[in-house]
């Protein structure tokens, strides 16, 4: 039996309603999982995978003269 840490303590997963989702765009791939108990959200975890950071700086060395 899998247990889930919730706002009500550890609960058997079989007692909970599980919902999952994701977001996928240029910046991130994010997944989330929620567990609900009798209509109440009792657990929500999120995993954000950062994909690619933009170039922050264009560094230049100026010519002399």
């Amino acid at each position, binding site marked *: 039996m899998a247990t889930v*840490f*919730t*706002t009500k303590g550890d609960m058997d997963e079989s007692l909970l309603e599980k919902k999952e989702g994701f*977001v996928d*765009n240029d*910046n*991130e791939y*994010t997944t*989330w*999982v*929620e567990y609900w108990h009798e209509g109440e*959200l*009792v*657990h*929500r*975890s*999120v*995993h*954000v*995978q*950062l*994909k*690619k*950071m*933009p*170039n*922050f*700086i*264009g*560094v*230049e*060395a100026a010519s002399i003269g």
Partner: protein
Amino acid sequence: MANTQSMCTSFMGELMTATHNFTTGTGDTFKAALYLASATVNAGTTVYSTTGEVTGTNYTPGGITVTNGTSPIATNATTTAGVAYWTPTSSLTYTNVTLSTAFDAVLIYNSTKSNKAVSVHTFGSQTVTAGTFTLTMPSNTTTTALLRLATT
């Protein structure tokens, strides 16, 4: 207000004064703090502040320490261009937290050097309930690393 992904401008200046040391093992300690979607952290952020930072169960103000297992790498692509880059070597993980107010940004800052700001990274707005928030880093390459200084 809103948070904006950017390298902090003060950090760029501080690179020229050798303020920050990203060397593995002997370098400075960097930390990662989460900010509410209603906060304002951006290029103008100069130092870590609790203003706008998330609060909640099992979240410590100031956030968590960043794992620095690889020193910055500098690579020349041509005779006139190259990239220096660095990425934390582990995911940023906030365990068993409850963060009920939406947050969408993490501030990387140097806790060894008076909490001077390094960079702001944004993502889709989230909440966490008795759960874990994990922020997995991009690959540490010349084109995807978390921090990249590139000649143009």
